[in-house]
Protein backbone atom coordinates (compact mmCIF):
# COMPACT_ATOMS: atom_id res chain seq x y z
CA UNK A 1 0.00 0.00 0.00
CA UNK A 2 2.11 2.78 -1.16
CA UNK A 3 1.74 6.32 -2.08
CA UNK A 4 5.18 7.57 -2.83
CA UNK A 5 5.88 11.21 -2.92
CA UNK A 6 9.31 11.45 -4.45
CA UNK A 7 9.50 14.68 -6.35
CA UNK A 8 12.54 13.84 -8.51
CA UNK A 9 11.90 12.96 -12.13
CA UNK A 10 11.50 9.19 -12.04
CA UNK A 11 12.97 6.96 -14.67
CA UNK A 12 16.24 8.82 -14.95
CA UNK A 13 19.50 7.28 -13.85
CA UNK A 14 20.00 10.01 -11.28
CA UNK A 15 16.65 9.22 -9.72
CA UNK A 16 17.47 5.54 -9.49
CA UNK A 17 20.84 6.32 -7.96
CA UNK A 18 19.24 8.68 -5.48
CA UNK A 19 16.66 6.13 -4.40
CA UNK A 20 19.34 3.46 -4.13
CA UNK A 21 21.39 5.71 -1.93
CA UNK A 22 18.41 6.58 0.21
CA UNK A 23 17.75 2.92 0.94
CA UNK A 24 21.37 1.99 1.34
CA UNK A 25 22.24 4.79 3.73
CA UNK A 26 19.17 4.02 5.82
CA UNK A 27 21.20 1.20 7.36
CA UNK A 28 23.85 2.52 9.74
CA UNK A 29 25.89 -0.68 9.54
CA UNK A 30 26.03 -0.66 5.77
CA UNK A 31 27.26 2.91 5.80
CA UNK A 32 30.02 2.15 8.31
CA UNK A 33 31.00 -0.90 6.28
CA UNK A 34 31.18 1.08 3.11
CA UNK A 35 33.25 3.85 4.66
CA UNK A 36 35.66 1.32 6.10
CA UNK A 37 36.07 -0.52 2.81
CA UNK A 38 36.50 2.78 1.00
CA UNK A 39 39.28 3.71 3.44
CA UNK A 40 41.00 0.37 2.93
CA UNK A 41 40.78 0.86 -0.83
CA UNK A 42 42.26 4.36 -0.63
CA UNK A 43 45.05 3.06 1.55
CA UNK A 44 45.69 0.27 -0.92
CA UNK A 45 45.83 2.71 -3.81
CA UNK A 46 48.14 5.12 -2.03
CA UNK A 47 50.28 2.42 -0.47
CA UNK A 48 53.67 3.58 -1.83
CA UNK A 49 53.12 7.03 -0.36
CA UNK A 50 51.51 6.02 2.88
CA UNK A 51 53.70 3.16 4.01
CA UNK A 52 56.60 4.28 6.22
CA UNK A 53 58.89 1.51 4.95
CA UNK A 54 59.48 -0.77 2.04
CA UNK A 55 57.32 -3.81 2.84
CA UNK A 56 60.09 -6.22 1.76
CA UNK A 57 62.91 -4.45 3.59
CA UNK A 58 64.40 -6.62 6.34
CA UNK A 59 65.92 -4.81 9.29
CA UNK A 60 68.22 -7.39 10.85
CA UNK A 61 68.77 -5.17 13.87
CA UNK A 62 65.07 -5.05 14.69
CA UNK A 63 63.64 -8.57 14.73
CA UNK A 64 60.24 -8.98 16.38
CA UNK A 65 60.16 -5.44 17.75
CA UNK A 66 56.88 -4.89 19.65
CA UNK A 67 54.43 -2.06 18.82
CA UNK A 68 55.01 1.49 19.93
CA UNK A 69 52.96 1.34 23.16
CA UNK A 70 55.24 -1.29 24.64
CA UNK A 71 58.30 -0.22 26.60
CA UNK A 72 60.63 -1.76 24.00
CA UNK A 73 58.61 -0.38 21.08
CA UNK A 74 59.68 2.56 18.95
CA UNK A 75 58.00 5.08 16.64
CA UNK A 76 60.11 3.69 13.84
CA UNK A 77 57.99 0.55 13.69
CA UNK A 78 54.58 1.64 14.92
CA UNK A 79 52.98 -1.82 14.85
CA UNK A 80 56.25 -3.69 15.41
CA UNK A 81 58.20 -5.96 13.08
CA UNK A 82 58.01 -9.61 12.16
CA UNK A 83 60.55 -12.42 12.55
CA UNK A 84 62.79 -11.14 9.76
CA UNK A 85 62.55 -7.49 10.75
CA UNK A 86 59.95 -6.24 8.25
CA UNK A 87 57.63 -3.40 9.30
CA UNK A 88 54.15 -4.83 9.97
CA UNK A 89 52.29 -1.57 9.27
CA UNK A 90 53.89 -1.22 5.86
CA UNK A 91 53.18 -4.81 5.04
CA UNK A 92 49.55 -4.41 6.09
CA UNK A 93 49.20 -1.32 3.92
CA UNK A 94 50.69 -3.04 0.89
CA UNK A 95 48.87 -6.24 1.77
CA UNK A 96 45.54 -4.45 1.32
CA UNK A 97 46.34 -4.23 -2.40
CA UNK A 98 46.85 -7.93 -2.73
CA UNK A 99 44.16 -9.17 -0.40
CA UNK A 100 41.41 -6.98 -1.84
CA UNK A 101 42.26 -7.42 -5.48
CA UNK A 102 42.86 -11.16 -5.25
CA UNK A 103 39.63 -11.75 -3.35
CA UNK A 104 37.68 -9.49 -5.66
CA UNK A 105 38.99 -11.38 -8.68
CA UNK A 106 38.19 -14.72 -7.08
CA UNK A 107 34.63 -13.68 -6.24
CA UNK A 108 34.14 -12.22 -9.70
CA UNK A 109 35.33 -15.34 -11.52
CA UNK A 110 33.43 -17.66 -9.26
CA UNK A 111 30.23 -15.63 -9.32
CA UNK A 112 30.21 -15.21 -13.09
CA UNK A 113 30.80 -18.90 -13.64
CA UNK A 114 28.40 -19.93 -10.90
CA UNK A 115 25.58 -17.72 -12.14
CA UNK A 116 26.00 -18.95 -15.68
CA UNK A 117 26.03 -22.63 -14.76
CA UNK A 118 23.27 -22.18 -12.19
CA UNK A 119 21.03 -20.38 -14.69
CA UNK A 120 21.58 -23.13 -17.25
CA UNK A 121 20.83 -25.84 -14.71
CA UNK A 122 17.77 -24.18 -13.24
CA UNK A 123 16.34 -22.99 -16.52
CA UNK A 124 16.74 -26.03 -18.72
CA UNK A 125 16.53 -28.76 -16.09
CA UNK A 126 16.79 -32.27 -17.54
CA UNK A 127 20.21 -33.64 -18.39
CA UNK A 128 21.90 -30.22 -18.38
CA UNK A 129 20.95 -29.87 -14.75
CA UNK A 130 22.00 -33.40 -13.88
CA UNK A 131 25.47 -32.96 -15.38
CA UNK A 132 26.08 -29.57 -13.76
CA UNK A 133 24.83 -30.50 -10.32
CA UNK A 134 26.73 -33.81 -10.28
CA UNK A 135 30.00 -32.09 -11.21
CA UNK A 136 29.36 -29.53 -8.48
CA UNK A 137 28.67 -32.32 -6.00
CA UNK A 138 32.04 -33.83 -6.89
CA UNK A 139 33.74 -30.47 -6.30
CA UNK A 140 32.00 -30.18 -2.96
CA UNK A 141 33.00 -33.71 -2.01
CA UNK A 142 36.69 -32.79 -1.96
CA UNK A 143 38.08 -31.02 1.07
CA UNK A 144 38.29 -27.53 -0.35
CA UNK A 145 41.92 -26.91 0.47
CA UNK A 146 43.00 -30.27 -0.97
CA UNK A 147 41.18 -29.51 -4.20
CA UNK A 148 42.75 -26.06 -4.41
CA UNK A 149 46.18 -27.57 -3.75
CA UNK A 150 45.67 -30.17 -6.44
CA UNK A 151 44.54 -27.57 -8.95
CA UNK A 152 47.48 -25.30 -8.18
CA UNK A 153 49.83 -28.24 -8.50
CA UNK A 154 48.43 -28.98 -11.94
CA UNK A 155 48.47 -25.32 -13.03
CA UNK A 156 51.94 -24.60 -11.54
CA UNK A 157 52.16 -22.56 -8.34
CA UNK A 158 51.56 -18.85 -8.53
CA UNK A 159 49.00 -16.13 -7.96
CA UNK A 160 46.88 -16.74 -11.06
CA UNK A 161 46.57 -20.46 -10.46
CA UNK A 162 45.74 -19.83 -6.82
CA UNK A 163 42.95 -17.47 -7.82
CA UNK A 164 41.51 -19.91 -10.34
CA UNK A 165 41.76 -22.77 -7.87
CA UNK A 166 39.90 -20.88 -5.14
CA UNK A 167 37.31 -19.66 -7.60
CA UNK A 168 36.63 -23.27 -8.58
CA UNK A 169 36.33 -24.26 -4.94
CA UNK A 170 33.75 -21.47 -4.39
CA UNK A 171 31.86 -22.21 -7.58
CA UNK A 172 29.38 -24.82 -6.26
CA UNK A 173 27.91 -22.41 -3.71
CA UNK A 174 27.02 -19.93 -6.43
CA UNK A 175 25.73 -22.63 -8.76
CA UNK A 176 23.50 -24.12 -6.10
CA UNK A 177 22.12 -20.80 -4.96
CA UNK A 178 21.44 -19.59 -8.47
CA UNK A 179 19.85 -22.87 -9.50
CA UNK A 180 17.61 -22.97 -6.44
CA UNK A 181 16.37 -19.41 -6.91
CA UNK A 182 15.89 -19.89 -10.65
CA UNK A 183 13.81 -23.01 -10.07
CA UNK A 184 11.76 -21.09 -7.51
CA UNK A 185 11.19 -18.13 -9.79
CA UNK A 186 10.89 -19.93 -13.11
CA UNK A 187 7.27 -20.94 -12.74
CA UNK A 188 6.17 -17.60 -11.39
CA UNK A 189 3.52 -16.00 -13.51
CA UNK A 190 5.55 -12.99 -14.51
CA UNK A 191 8.01 -15.29 -16.24
CA UNK A 192 5.20 -16.95 -18.17
CA UNK A 193 3.85 -13.52 -19.07
CA UNK A 194 7.27 -12.53 -20.38
CA UNK A 195 7.41 -15.73 -22.39
CA UNK A 196 4.03 -14.98 -23.91
CA UNK A 197 5.30 -11.54 -24.83
CA UNK A 198 7.87 -13.34 -26.92
CA UNK A 199 11.00 -13.34 -24.80
CA UNK A 200 13.62 -15.90 -25.86
CA UNK A 201 15.67 -18.19 -23.65
CA UNK A 202 18.55 -15.76 -23.16
CA UNK A 203 16.28 -12.85 -22.36
CA UNK A 204 14.27 -14.91 -19.91
CA UNK A 205 17.41 -16.17 -18.20
CA UNK A 206 19.40 -12.98 -17.92
CA UNK A 207 16.85 -10.20 -18.11
CA UNK A 208 13.81 -11.65 -16.41
CA UNK A 209 15.06 -14.28 -14.00
CA UNK A 210 18.54 -13.19 -12.97
CA UNK A 211 17.66 -9.82 -11.39
CA UNK A 212 15.13 -11.59 -9.19
CA UNK A 213 17.74 -14.08 -8.00
CA UNK A 214 20.47 -11.56 -7.15
CA UNK A 215 19.72 -10.81 -3.51
CA UNK A 216 21.02 -14.12 -2.06
CA UNK A 217 23.92 -14.07 -4.52
CA UNK A 218 25.11 -10.72 -3.25
CA UNK A 219 25.11 -12.01 0.29
CA UNK A 220 26.94 -15.13 -0.85
CA UNK A 221 29.48 -12.95 -2.66
CA UNK A 222 30.35 -11.12 0.52
CA UNK A 223 30.73 -14.42 2.36
CA UNK A 224 32.92 -15.75 -0.45
CA UNK A 225 35.04 -12.65 -0.28
CA UNK A 226 36.05 -13.44 3.25
CA UNK A 227 36.59 -17.12 2.52
CA UNK A 228 38.73 -16.13 -0.44
CA UNK A 229 40.99 -14.00 1.75
CA UNK A 230 41.46 -16.93 4.11
CA UNK A 231 41.94 -19.55 1.37
CA UNK A 232 44.52 -17.46 -0.42
CA UNK A 233 46.35 -17.15 2.88
CA UNK A 234 46.27 -20.87 3.43
CA UNK A 235 47.65 -21.54 -0.02
CA UNK A 236 50.35 -18.96 0.57
CA UNK A 237 51.25 -20.66 3.82
CA UNK A 238 51.67 -23.97 2.04
CA UNK A 239 53.89 -22.34 -0.55
CA UNK A 240 51.34 -22.72 -3.30
CA UNK A 241 49.81 -19.26 -3.41
CA UNK A 242 51.26 -15.82 -3.07
CA UNK A 243 55.01 -16.22 -3.14
CA UNK A 244 57.19 -14.50 -0.49
CA UNK A 245 58.07 -11.76 0.06
CA UNK A 246 54.75 -10.46 -1.29
CA UNK A 247 52.97 -8.91 1.72
CA UNK A 248 49.55 -10.56 1.71
CA UNK A 249 47.48 -10.48 4.93
CA UNK A 250 46.72 -14.17 5.08
CA UNK A 251 50.30 -15.10 4.30
CA UNK A 252 51.49 -12.72 7.03
CA UNK A 253 49.19 -14.41 9.47
CA UNK A 254 50.36 -17.84 8.42
CA UNK A 255 54.04 -16.94 8.54
CA UNK A 256 53.82 -15.53 12.02
CA UNK A 257 51.93 -18.39 13.53
CA UNK A 258 54.92 -19.90 15.29
CA UNK A 259 55.51 -16.67 17.22
CA UNK A 260 51.98 -16.44 18.49
CA UNK A 261 53.09 -16.99 22.07
CA UNK A 262 56.08 -14.66 22.12
CA UNK A 263 55.12 -11.91 19.66
CA UNK A 264 51.36 -11.57 19.55
CA UNK A 265 51.49 -8.48 17.33
CA UNK A 266 52.79 -10.38 14.38
CA UNK A 267 49.55 -12.42 14.22
CA UNK A 268 47.10 -10.04 15.86
CA UNK A 269 47.28 -7.18 13.40
CA UNK A 270 46.91 -9.20 10.21
CA UNK A 271 44.19 -11.21 11.93
CA UNK A 272 42.42 -8.11 13.12
CA UNK A 273 42.50 -6.44 9.75
CA UNK A 274 41.14 -9.58 8.08
CA UNK A 275 38.40 -9.81 10.67
CA UNK A 276 37.44 -6.16 10.32
CA UNK A 277 37.48 -6.24 6.54
CA UNK A 278 35.34 -9.35 6.40
CA UNK A 279 32.90 -7.96 8.94
CA UNK A 280 32.58 -4.66 7.15
CA UNK A 281 32.08 -6.37 3.81
CA UNK A 282 29.29 -8.43 5.30
CA UNK A 283 27.64 -5.35 6.76
CA UNK A 284 27.85 -3.68 3.39
CA UNK A 285 26.44 -6.80 1.76
CA UNK A 286 23.35 -6.64 3.95
CA UNK A 287 22.83 -3.01 3.09
CA UNK A 288 23.30 -3.71 -0.60
CA UNK A 289 20.73 -6.46 -0.52
CA UNK A 290 18.19 -4.24 1.19
CA UNK A 291 18.77 -1.45 -1.26
CA UNK A 292 18.84 -3.58 -4.41
CA UNK A 293 15.77 -5.60 -3.63
CA UNK A 294 12.64 -3.55 -4.38
CA UNK A 295 10.59 -5.95 -2.29
CA UNK A 296 12.52 -4.87 0.79
CA UNK A 297 12.07 -1.21 0.01
CA UNK A 298 9.94 0.69 2.38
CA UNK A 299 7.36 2.54 0.45
Amino acid at each position, binding site marked *: *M*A*AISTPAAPGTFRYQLASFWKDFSASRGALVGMIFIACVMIVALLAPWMAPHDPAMQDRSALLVPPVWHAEGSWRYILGTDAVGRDILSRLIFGARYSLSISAMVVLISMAGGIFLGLLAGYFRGWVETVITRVMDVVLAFPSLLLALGLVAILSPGLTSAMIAIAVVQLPYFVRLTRASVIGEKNREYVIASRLAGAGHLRLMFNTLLPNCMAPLIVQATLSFSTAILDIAALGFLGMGVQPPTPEWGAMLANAREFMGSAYWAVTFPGLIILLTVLMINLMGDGLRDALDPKMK*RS
Partner: protein
Amino acid sequence: MALLDIEGLSVRFQTSSGLFPAVENVDIKVDRGEVWSIVGESGSGKSVAMLATMGLLPWTAEVTAERMLFDGQDLQRLGSRQRRRIVGGEMSMIFQEPMSSLNPCFTVGAQLDEMIKQHRGGTRRERHERALDLLAQVGIPDPARRIRAYPHQLSGGMSQRVMIAMAISCDPRLLIADEPTTALDVTIQAQILELLLRLQEEKGMALILITHDMGVVAETARNVIVQYAGRQVEKQEVRSLFAAPRHPYTEALLSALPERSGDADRLPTIPGVVPGQHDRPTGCLFNPRCRYVTEHCREVAPIPAADDPAHTLCHYPLNDPQAATPPDGLSPRSQQQDDNPEVRP
Protein backbone atom coordinates in the same frame (compact mmCIF):
# COMPACT_ATOMS: atom_id res chain seq x y z
CA MET B 1 -23.66 -11.86 31.41
CA ALA B 2 -22.30 -12.21 27.92
CA LEU B 3 -19.79 -14.93 27.15
CA LEU B 4 -17.40 -12.62 25.38
CA ASP B 5 -17.65 -8.96 26.25
CA ILE B 6 -15.21 -6.60 24.62
CA GLU B 7 -15.41 -2.86 24.65
CA GLY B 8 -13.14 -0.28 23.13
CA LEU B 9 -10.58 -2.73 21.75
CA SER B 10 -7.75 -1.07 19.88
CA VAL B 11 -4.68 -2.66 18.34
CA ARG B 12 -1.78 -0.62 17.11
CA PHE B 13 1.26 -2.01 15.35
CA GLN B 14 4.69 -0.60 15.69
CA THR B 15 6.07 -0.12 12.20
CA SER B 16 9.21 1.54 10.95
CA SER B 17 7.24 4.68 10.23
CA GLY B 18 5.27 4.99 13.42
CA LEU B 19 2.26 3.39 15.04
CA PHE B 20 -0.33 1.97 12.69
CA PRO B 21 -3.84 1.64 14.11
CA ALA B 22 -5.04 -1.70 12.74
CA VAL B 23 -8.13 -1.85 14.93
CA GLU B 24 -9.78 1.04 16.68
CA ASN B 25 -12.50 1.08 19.27
CA VAL B 26 -14.19 -2.23 18.51
CA ASP B 27 -17.00 -3.57 20.70
CA ILE B 28 -18.13 -7.17 20.55
CA LYS B 29 -20.61 -8.83 22.81
CA VAL B 30 -21.33 -12.49 22.14
CA ASP B 31 -23.75 -14.57 24.17
CA ARG B 32 -23.71 -18.32 24.61
CA GLY B 33 -24.84 -20.18 21.52
CA GLU B 34 -24.88 -17.13 19.24
CA VAL B 35 -23.53 -17.05 15.72
CA TRP B 36 -21.81 -13.82 14.79
CA SER B 37 -20.07 -12.84 11.66
CA ILE B 38 -17.43 -10.18 11.23
CA VAL B 39 -17.29 -9.09 7.64
CA GLY B 40 -14.90 -6.74 5.90
CA GLU B 41 -12.38 -6.42 3.12
CA SER B 42 -8.67 -6.89 3.52
CA GLY B 43 -7.23 -4.26 5.82
CA SER B 44 -10.45 -3.96 7.78
CA GLY B 45 -8.78 -5.43 10.86
CA LYS B 46 -11.34 -8.20 11.23
CA SER B 47 -8.78 -10.92 11.93
CA VAL B 48 -6.55 -8.70 14.02
CA ALA B 49 -9.35 -7.92 16.47
CA MET B 50 -9.97 -11.62 17.09
CA LEU B 51 -6.28 -12.49 17.26
CA ALA B 52 -5.91 -9.78 19.89
CA THR B 53 -8.74 -11.33 21.86
CA MET B 54 -6.97 -14.67 21.69
CA GLY B 55 -3.67 -13.07 22.68
CA LEU B 56 -2.01 -14.36 19.53
CA LEU B 57 -0.51 -11.16 18.21
CA PRO B 58 3.26 -10.56 18.03
CA TRP B 59 4.96 -8.25 20.47
CA THR B 60 4.93 -5.34 18.02
CA ALA B 61 1.20 -5.07 18.61
CA GLU B 62 -0.08 -2.81 21.32
CA VAL B 63 -3.47 -4.04 22.52
CA THR B 64 -5.68 -1.84 24.65
CA ALA B 65 -9.28 -2.27 25.68
CA GLU B 66 -11.65 -0.74 28.13
CA ARG B 67 -13.13 -4.12 28.84
CA MET B 68 -12.13 -7.57 27.70
CA LEU B 69 -14.08 -10.23 29.53
CA PHE B 70 -14.51 -13.87 28.74
CA ASP B 71 -17.15 -15.48 30.92
CA GLY B 72 -16.60 -12.77 33.50
CA GLN B 73 -12.84 -13.17 33.64
CA ASP B 74 -10.72 -10.22 32.65
CA LEU B 75 -8.48 -11.44 29.83
CA GLN B 76 -6.15 -8.48 30.24
CA ARG B 77 -5.35 -9.33 33.84
CA LEU B 78 -4.93 -13.06 33.53
CA GLY B 79 -1.50 -14.56 33.98
CA SER B 80 -0.06 -16.27 30.98
CA ARG B 81 -0.76 -19.74 32.35
CA GLN B 82 -4.42 -19.07 33.07
CA ARG B 83 -4.76 -17.36 29.76
CA ARG B 84 -3.35 -20.39 27.97
CA ARG B 85 -5.93 -22.55 29.69
CA ILE B 86 -8.75 -20.41 28.34
CA VAL B 87 -7.25 -19.85 24.91
CA GLY B 88 -7.31 -23.16 23.10
CA GLY B 89 -9.52 -24.67 25.76
CA GLU B 90 -12.64 -22.64 26.32
CA MET B 91 -12.03 -20.32 23.41
CA SER B 92 -10.54 -21.73 20.29
CA MET B 93 -9.78 -20.66 16.76
CA ILE B 94 -9.40 -22.10 13.26
CA PHE B 95 -7.65 -20.41 10.38
CA GLN B 96 -7.82 -19.85 6.66
CA GLU B 97 -5.03 -22.13 5.50
CA PRO B 98 -5.73 -25.59 6.88
CA MET B 99 -2.74 -27.04 5.06
CA SER B 100 -0.25 -24.81 6.84
CA SER B 101 -2.02 -24.87 10.19
CA LEU B 102 -1.09 -28.50 10.73
CA ASN B 103 2.47 -29.50 11.53
CA PRO B 104 3.68 -31.55 8.56
CA CYS B 105 6.03 -33.66 10.69
CA PHE B 106 3.42 -35.34 12.88
CA THR B 107 0.42 -37.51 12.22
CA VAL B 108 -3.08 -36.20 12.70
CA GLY B 109 -3.41 -38.47 15.71
CA ALA B 110 -0.27 -37.17 17.38
CA GLN B 111 -1.39 -33.58 16.96
CA LEU B 112 -4.86 -34.26 18.30
CA ASP B 113 -3.35 -36.19 21.18
CA GLU B 114 -1.08 -33.29 22.06
CA MET B 115 -4.05 -30.95 22.18
CA ILE B 116 -6.12 -33.29 24.38
CA LYS B 117 -3.16 -33.93 26.67
CA GLN B 118 -2.60 -30.21 27.17
CA HIS B 119 -6.13 -29.38 28.14
CA ARG B 120 -7.84 -32.53 29.39
CA GLY B 121 -5.24 -35.10 30.26
CA GLY B 122 -6.29 -38.74 30.63
CA THR B 123 -4.54 -41.97 29.86
CA ARG B 124 -3.10 -42.72 26.47
CA ARG B 125 -6.00 -45.02 25.76
CA GLU B 126 -8.64 -42.49 26.73
CA ARG B 127 -6.98 -39.87 24.62
CA HIS B 128 -6.89 -42.18 21.63
CA GLU B 129 -10.58 -42.95 22.04
CA ARG B 130 -11.31 -39.28 22.32
CA ALA B 131 -9.31 -38.50 19.16
CA LEU B 132 -11.18 -41.16 17.18
CA ASP B 133 -14.46 -39.80 18.46
CA LEU B 134 -13.54 -36.26 17.47
CA LEU B 135 -12.55 -37.28 13.96
CA ALA B 136 -15.87 -39.06 13.59
CA GLN B 137 -17.71 -36.00 14.87
CA VAL B 138 -16.20 -33.79 12.18
CA GLY B 139 -17.25 -36.26 9.51
CA ILE B 140 -13.95 -37.81 8.55
CA PRO B 141 -14.59 -41.19 6.96
CA ASP B 142 -12.65 -44.12 8.39
CA PRO B 143 -11.15 -42.30 11.42
CA ALA B 144 -9.15 -45.33 12.54
CA ARG B 145 -7.12 -45.11 9.34
CA ARG B 146 -7.01 -41.31 9.04
CA ILE B 147 -5.67 -40.89 12.56
CA ARG B 148 -2.36 -42.28 11.33
CA ALA B 149 -2.24 -40.02 8.27
CA TYR B 150 0.22 -37.16 7.84
CA PRO B 151 -1.13 -33.74 6.87
CA HIS B 152 0.22 -33.95 3.30
CA GLN B 153 -1.91 -37.03 2.74
CA LEU B 154 -5.09 -35.05 3.37
CA SER B 155 -6.97 -32.76 1.04
CA GLY B 156 -7.73 -29.16 2.02
CA GLY B 157 -11.24 -30.04 3.15
CA MET B 158 -10.00 -32.96 5.25
CA SER B 159 -7.29 -30.80 6.83
CA GLN B 160 -9.86 -28.20 7.77
CA ARG B 161 -11.98 -30.93 9.36
CA VAL B 162 -8.95 -32.03 11.38
CA MET B 163 -8.35 -28.42 12.45
CA ILE B 164 -11.97 -28.23 13.57
CA ALA B 165 -11.56 -31.50 15.48
CA MET B 166 -8.57 -30.02 17.28
CA ALA B 167 -10.42 -26.82 18.00
CA ILE B 168 -13.42 -28.59 19.52
CA SER B 169 -11.34 -31.21 21.36
CA CYS B 170 -11.76 -29.37 24.65
CA ASP B 171 -15.42 -28.49 24.20
CA PRO B 172 -14.83 -24.77 23.76
CA ARG B 173 -17.63 -22.38 24.56
CA LEU B 174 -16.50 -20.00 21.84
CA LEU B 175 -15.10 -20.93 18.43
CA ILE B 176 -13.59 -18.27 16.23
CA ALA B 177 -13.32 -19.28 12.57
CA ASP B 178 -11.07 -16.97 10.55
CA GLU B 179 -12.01 -17.32 6.87
CA PRO B 180 -12.35 -21.08 7.35
CA THR B 181 -13.50 -21.80 3.79
CA THR B 182 -11.72 -19.19 1.70
CA ALA B 183 -9.07 -21.62 0.52
CA LEU B 184 -11.59 -24.36 -0.25
CA ASP B 185 -13.78 -25.22 -3.21
CA VAL B 186 -17.46 -24.33 -3.21
CA THR B 187 -18.80 -27.83 -2.66
CA ILE B 188 -16.28 -28.42 0.14
CA GLN B 189 -17.05 -24.98 1.57
CA ALA B 190 -20.70 -25.95 1.83
CA GLN B 191 -19.74 -29.11 3.73
CA ILE B 192 -17.46 -27.27 6.16
CA LEU B 193 -19.96 -24.49 6.87
CA GLU B 194 -22.65 -27.04 7.51
CA LEU B 195 -20.33 -28.92 9.85
CA LEU B 196 -19.50 -25.76 11.79
CA LEU B 197 -23.15 -24.85 12.21
CA ARG B 198 -24.06 -28.39 13.23
CA LEU B 199 -21.32 -28.51 15.86
CA GLN B 200 -22.28 -25.06 17.07
CA GLU B 201 -25.84 -26.20 17.62
CA GLU B 202 -24.98 -29.59 19.15
CA LYS B 203 -22.49 -28.21 21.59
CA GLY B 204 -24.18 -24.89 22.24
CA MET B 205 -20.98 -23.07 21.34
CA ALA B 206 -20.84 -19.45 20.34
CA LEU B 207 -19.37 -19.06 16.87
CA ILE B 208 -17.66 -16.02 15.41
CA LEU B 209 -17.16 -16.35 11.69
CA ILE B 210 -14.69 -13.95 10.10
CA THR B 211 -15.21 -13.67 6.37
CA HIS B 212 -15.16 -11.39 3.36
CA ASP B 213 -17.83 -13.35 1.52
CA MET B 214 -21.30 -11.81 1.73
CA GLY B 215 -22.82 -15.07 0.52
CA VAL B 216 -21.33 -16.97 3.45
CA VAL B 217 -22.57 -14.30 5.84
CA ALA B 218 -26.08 -14.45 4.47
CA GLU B 219 -26.29 -18.20 4.74
CA THR B 220 -24.68 -18.78 8.13
CA ALA B 221 -24.69 -15.85 10.52
CA ARG B 222 -27.47 -14.45 12.61
CA ASN B 223 -25.74 -11.24 13.61
CA VAL B 224 -23.23 -9.32 11.60
CA ILE B 225 -20.55 -6.76 12.39
CA VAL B 226 -19.23 -4.81 9.42
CA GLN B 227 -15.70 -3.47 9.70
CA TYR B 228 -13.95 -0.94 7.56
CA ALA B 229 -10.33 0.23 7.94
CA GLY B 230 -10.14 -1.06 11.51
CA ARG B 231 -13.43 0.49 12.59
CA GLN B 232 -16.74 -1.14 13.29
CA VAL B 233 -19.12 0.67 11.00
CA GLU B 234 -22.31 -1.15 11.88
CA LYS B 235 -23.75 -4.10 13.72
CA GLN B 236 -27.07 -5.67 12.75
CA GLU B 237 -29.18 -8.76 12.57
CA VAL B 238 -28.40 -10.41 9.24
CA ARG B 239 -31.79 -9.99 7.54
CA SER B 240 -32.10 -6.32 8.32
CA LEU B 241 -28.48 -5.78 7.32
CA PHE B 242 -29.13 -7.10 3.85
CA ALA B 243 -32.52 -5.45 3.58
CA ALA B 244 -31.70 -2.08 5.13
CA PRO B 245 -27.98 -1.39 5.61
CA ARG B 246 -27.41 1.60 7.85
CA HIS B 247 -23.89 2.56 6.80
CA PRO B 248 -23.09 3.85 3.31
CA TYR B 249 -20.16 1.44 3.14
CA THR B 250 -22.36 -1.58 3.74
CA GLU B 251 -24.81 -0.31 1.18
CA ALA B 252 -22.07 0.17 -1.39
CA LEU B 253 -20.55 -3.22 -0.63
CA LEU B 254 -23.86 -4.99 -1.07
CA SER B 255 -24.60 -3.25 -4.33
CA ALA B 256 -21.17 -4.24 -5.66
CA LEU B 257 -22.18 -7.89 -5.46
CA PRO B 258 -22.67 -9.19 -8.99
CA GLU B 259 -25.79 -11.12 -8.02
CA ARG B 260 -27.48 -8.08 -6.54
CA SER B 261 -26.71 -5.71 -9.37
CA GLY B 262 -29.55 -6.93 -11.55
CA ASP B 263 -29.30 -6.26 -15.25
CA ALA B 264 -27.46 -2.97 -14.98
CA ASP B 265 -24.88 -2.55 -17.68
CA ARG B 266 -22.12 -1.78 -15.24
CA LEU B 267 -21.55 -3.02 -11.72
CA PRO B 268 -21.84 -0.29 -9.13
CA THR B 269 -18.38 0.21 -7.66
CA ILE B 270 -16.83 1.89 -4.67
CA PRO B 271 -14.18 4.23 -6.00
CA GLY B 272 -10.74 4.28 -4.44
CA VAL B 273 -9.18 1.83 -1.99
CA VAL B 274 -9.19 1.16 1.73
CA PRO B 275 -6.87 3.75 3.30
CA GLY B 276 -3.46 2.48 4.31
CA GLN B 277 -1.02 3.71 6.89
CA HIS B 278 -0.01 6.84 5.06
CA ASP B 279 -3.21 8.07 3.53
CA ARG B 280 -5.72 8.02 6.36
CA PRO B 281 -8.23 10.76 5.75
CA THR B 282 -9.40 13.18 8.40
CA GLY B 283 -12.93 12.93 9.71
CA CYS B 284 -14.81 9.80 8.73
CA LEU B 285 -12.46 7.14 7.36
CA PHE B 286 -14.90 6.29 4.59
CA ASN B 287 -15.42 9.87 3.41
CA PRO B 288 -13.19 9.77 0.27
CA ARG B 289 -15.19 6.84 -1.10
CA CYS B 290 -18.63 7.74 0.18
CA ARG B 291 -21.32 8.94 -2.20
CA TYR B 292 -23.18 10.84 0.51
CA VAL B 293 -20.14 12.74 1.75
CA THR B 294 -20.53 16.27 3.10
CA GLU B 295 -18.06 18.83 4.36
CA HIS B 296 -18.93 17.78 7.89
CA CYS B 297 -17.83 14.18 7.16
CA ARG B 298 -14.43 15.37 6.00
CA GLU B 299 -13.78 17.30 9.17
CA VAL B 300 -15.38 15.46 12.07
CA ALA B 301 -15.01 11.79 12.87
CA PRO B 302 -18.45 10.30 13.52
CA ILE B 303 -19.47 8.53 16.71
CA PRO B 304 -22.45 6.17 16.86
CA ALA B 305 -25.65 7.73 18.12
CA ALA B 306 -26.52 6.58 21.62
CA ASP B 307 -30.00 5.41 20.61
CA ASP B 308 -28.88 3.57 17.49
CA PRO B 309 -29.08 -0.21 18.00
CA ALA B 310 -26.89 -0.74 14.95
CA HIS B 311 -24.11 1.50 16.33
CA THR B 312 -23.71 3.01 12.89
CA LEU B 313 -20.45 4.88 12.60
CA CYS B 314 -21.82 7.58 10.38
CA HIS B 315 -23.10 11.14 10.69
CA TYR B 316 -26.06 10.36 8.47
CA PRO B 317 -27.11 6.72 8.85
CA LEU B 318 -29.25 5.34 6.06
CA ASN B 319 -32.56 3.52 6.38
CA ASP B 320 -33.37 5.01 9.75
CA PRO B 321 -36.24 2.93 11.12
CA GLN B 322 -37.57 5.92 13.08
CA ALA B 323 -37.40 8.55 10.37
CA ALA B 324 -39.45 7.84 7.29
CA THR B 325 -37.68 10.35 5.09
CA PRO B 326 -34.01 11.26 5.08
CA PRO B 327 -33.06 14.63 6.53
CA ASP B 328 -32.98 17.60 4.23
CA GLY B 329 -30.17 18.02 1.79
CA LEU B 330 -29.10 14.44 2.05
CA SER B 331 -29.12 12.91 -1.34
CA PRO B 332 -26.41 11.03 -3.16
CA ARG B 333 -23.64 13.31 -4.29
CA SER B 334 -24.27 12.22 -7.84
CA GLN B 335 -26.31 9.44 -9.22
CA GLN B 336 -23.71 8.56 -11.75
CA GLN B 337 -21.28 6.20 -10.10
CA ASP B 338 -17.79 7.47 -9.96
CA ASP B 339 -15.78 4.75 -11.61
CA ASN B 340 -12.47 6.43 -11.17
CA PRO B 341 -10.29 3.57 -9.98
CA GLU B 342 -8.18 3.66 -6.89
CA VAL B 343 -6.30 6.76 -7.92
CA ARG B 344 -5.27 8.74 -4.95
CA PRO B 345 -4.97 12.48 -4.93
